[in-house]
């Protein structure tokens, strides 16, 4: 009986896990891509993010907002990657440089994505993430602050400055 009960819990948890992946997988991938500017790496960090999310599910930890949790995990995973990146050799770093995205995407769309990504890559990482989360994902400053461990006010100020910097890049 215990076995069956546990089996059902596993199935429910798996369903919840896959639902979250279907719902937020693309958004997390975009977030990772904007942070690391490399498709393959962004996919790896996306996968790592969901694996860590499974850890929460299997441990039965309380989750009140799946989306926030996923962004928080992804943000930390990307930070870890930056730490590791500092340790790798120059050659390796060159290999893990900027790369175009989605080979299955039509060339002209891909070019448009790459242009935007290329442009914003000149901004600070903090600027990029706040621009993406606000203008692409439509999240309010309060939620972004919760995810990134900052106050809503800090996020608003950062967003304002980041928008100005991007405008400068585009129109100067």
């Amino acid at each position, binding site marked *: *009986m*215990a076995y*069956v*009960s*546990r089996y059902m*819990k*596993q*199935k*429910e*948890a*798996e*369903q*919840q*896990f*896959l639902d979250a*992946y279907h719902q937020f*997988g*693309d958004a997390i*991938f*975009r977030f990772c*891509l*904007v942070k690391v500017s490399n498709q393959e790496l962004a*996919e790896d960090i*996306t*996968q790592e993010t*969901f*694996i860590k999310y*499974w*850890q929460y*599910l*299997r*441990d*039965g*930890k*309380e*989750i*009140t*907002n*799946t989306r926030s949790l996923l962004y928080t995990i992804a943000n930390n995973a990307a930070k870890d990657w930056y730490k590791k990146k500092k340790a790798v050799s120059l050659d390796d770093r060159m290999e893990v440089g900027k790369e175009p*995205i*989605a*080979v*299955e*995407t039509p060339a002209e*769309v891909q070019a*448009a*994505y790459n242009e*935007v*990504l290329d*442009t*914003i890559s000149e901004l600070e990482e903090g600027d990029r993430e706040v*621009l*993406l989360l606000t*203008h*692409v994902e439509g999240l309010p400053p309060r939620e972004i602050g919760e995810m990134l461990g900052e106050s809503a006010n800090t996020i608003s100020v950062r967003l304002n400055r980041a*928008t100005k910097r*991007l*405008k400068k890049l*585009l*129109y100067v």
Partner: protein
Amino acid sequence: MNEEKNTTEYLHSLKDISLSESSRARIEKELLAHAQFHPVREGVRVAAGSRSIRQVQGSTSLFGLRLTFMPLALLLAVFISGGVTFAAQGTVPGDALYPVKTEFNESVRSAFAIGANAETRLQTKLLAERLEEAGELQSENRLSGDIGVNMKTAVESQIESTASAATDADTATRVVATEAIINAVTTFNAMVENDTSLAIAVDALDVDTNTKTAISTSLASNPIDVAVLKNSTETRATALKNLLVTSSAEISTEVRTALEAKVDTALALVTDVSLEAEAEARTQITEASNLLGEVEAALTTMGTATIDTDTGTIIDIDFSTPPPAEPNRGDGETQNQNQSDTTTTTDVDVDGSVDTDIINVDADASLEATSGINL
């Protein structure tokens, strides 16, 4: 031009960036594999369809009892009311109370089955119940996916329990159990023929080699496995021999000697059967079976036969009540002609339970039919 607006619109194109189909599928597959390899821990409660999950300290409980006390709690439930266990009886895999039925109710039934034969008969009945459940699921189109896998596991497990109990049972009971196992595998596999992943693989069963061989042969060719035939024919011959010995007062020595000679020949033939040479074995068993049929035909002309409904073997003859039709009795020479059907009512089964079946015994053929054995 509104530069502010254009700046944000410029970013909007990023909204369409998504994982490529191949990457999405690959990651999903890897995530699921990871989740299955690292399953949920004990005591975790998952709220399906909810964004919130909470951990329950200790473990899942009944009346606040820890998991280790679950059997005790269930026993308590029985004492308080048989409702739960009664309600569980009609369940199928996928129902909440199904584990109560298989893990509790049936353990209780098993505890009351004293002796290897009784236990084997119980396990054989439970196997039939598993098949009924599978049939029910199939009729509701639910014999697939996780429920299908659970059902398959339940049938396999019951086959193993039946085979295990049968190893200590007497020959007749063992034959019935083996036939039930063969029937279970054949029937279940026929039910899931559209989903081969659910088919029961004989090799995967934890049963003895003879049973495995019996199932494999049966699946390979429709006729009942030669090993099963050998066993059942031996049982039939032994029963007849015993009957002749105990009927020495009622049957004339001359007739009895003639009948005993036939039984002995049949017994010798069947004991000599080599299971390796199947075709030869079948011929030999058929020959033995014909001889036994002759003896049975002769005996049924002498009185009212009592037949074990499970094995189709004559276990007793009441010489004081001769059969209504068939005047030429006991000449020992009633060969292979269809004797007039002898109606036998009756009878006390090997386990002591009284069967009220009325069986029409067609002298040399229907005995095989009642035992479900086709040569």
